């Protein structure tokens, strides 16, 4: 159990296992490495995450989900933030470490088409 985290987050943390490793190697699962400290409290620099790509037929995003999104102003840059609020398919994304995060407070609401996927597993470094 990880103290201080929302209930939903606890289920995201996994220990490395052979099945996931195989899934990553064959490309069945997408994975990314965390850079920066804006999600500290949940994600640390160097943590590995996997995410489920968003299914346009069935958008299942909720407040509290950690998502991977395209940076709205910088091409080819991915950001990882938590959904703070949802306003008609526009997302207020925030970093858990609010004192050190560039997020919707400066970037504005993020359009749905910028959201790439939802984090489903976190492997702490």
């Amino acid at each position: 159990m990880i103290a201080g985290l929302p209930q939903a987050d606890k289920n995201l943390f996994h220990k490395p296992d052979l099945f996931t490793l195989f899934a990553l190697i064959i490309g069945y699962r997408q994975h990314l490495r965390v850079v920066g400290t804006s999600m500290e409290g949940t994600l640390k620099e160097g943590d590995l995450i996997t995410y489920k790509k968003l299914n346009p037929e069935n958008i299942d995003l909720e407040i509290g989900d950690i998502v991977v999104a395209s940076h709205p102003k910088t091409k080819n840059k991915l950001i990882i933030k938590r959904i703070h609020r949802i306003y008609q398919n526009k997302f207020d994304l925030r970093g858990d470490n609010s004192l050190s995060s560039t997020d919707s407070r400066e970037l504005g609401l993020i359009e749905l088409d910028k959201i790439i996927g939802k984090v489903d597993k976190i492997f702490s470094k």
Partner: protein
Amino acid sequence: MLRETLRSIFNKLPAKSVHAHCDGPCGVYDPASARVAAEAVLSMTKKLIALAPAGNDQASISAYNNTFSRFVAIKEEESQKTKKELLILWTDYFKPEHLATYPDLHDTFWKAAKLCSACKVNIDQTKAEELLGAVQKIHSMFWSSKGRNDSWVTAS
């Protein structure tokens, strides 16, 4: 053993980066740039107050006018630079959450920015000293917000 090996593989697994940080030069903020500019404003103000023509002849008056103009131009430029550096800290570094710790944050920055304007408009040593004092207060807020206690050191 297997778990440790897997952990090691996961830690070394090539992966694209996903950014959980600030934009641009992340976290590279420092009130030192504002301090240097504010010090220059005070220095130029003092020099302007002390400046006098060497004589009443045309050459002395011309030299005086030339130096006076240069000093005023530098004072204007450095005041504007101080304001710019302060606005970057105010709008980019400080976040709404800092207001809980520093309830006078907005007032401090607003007054400091006003002092920059006052230093441009006037040759006023008191205002220039007040500006440096305001920058010192912002220096303390900034470093304490980072959990540090960096001492205030001036160049002059």
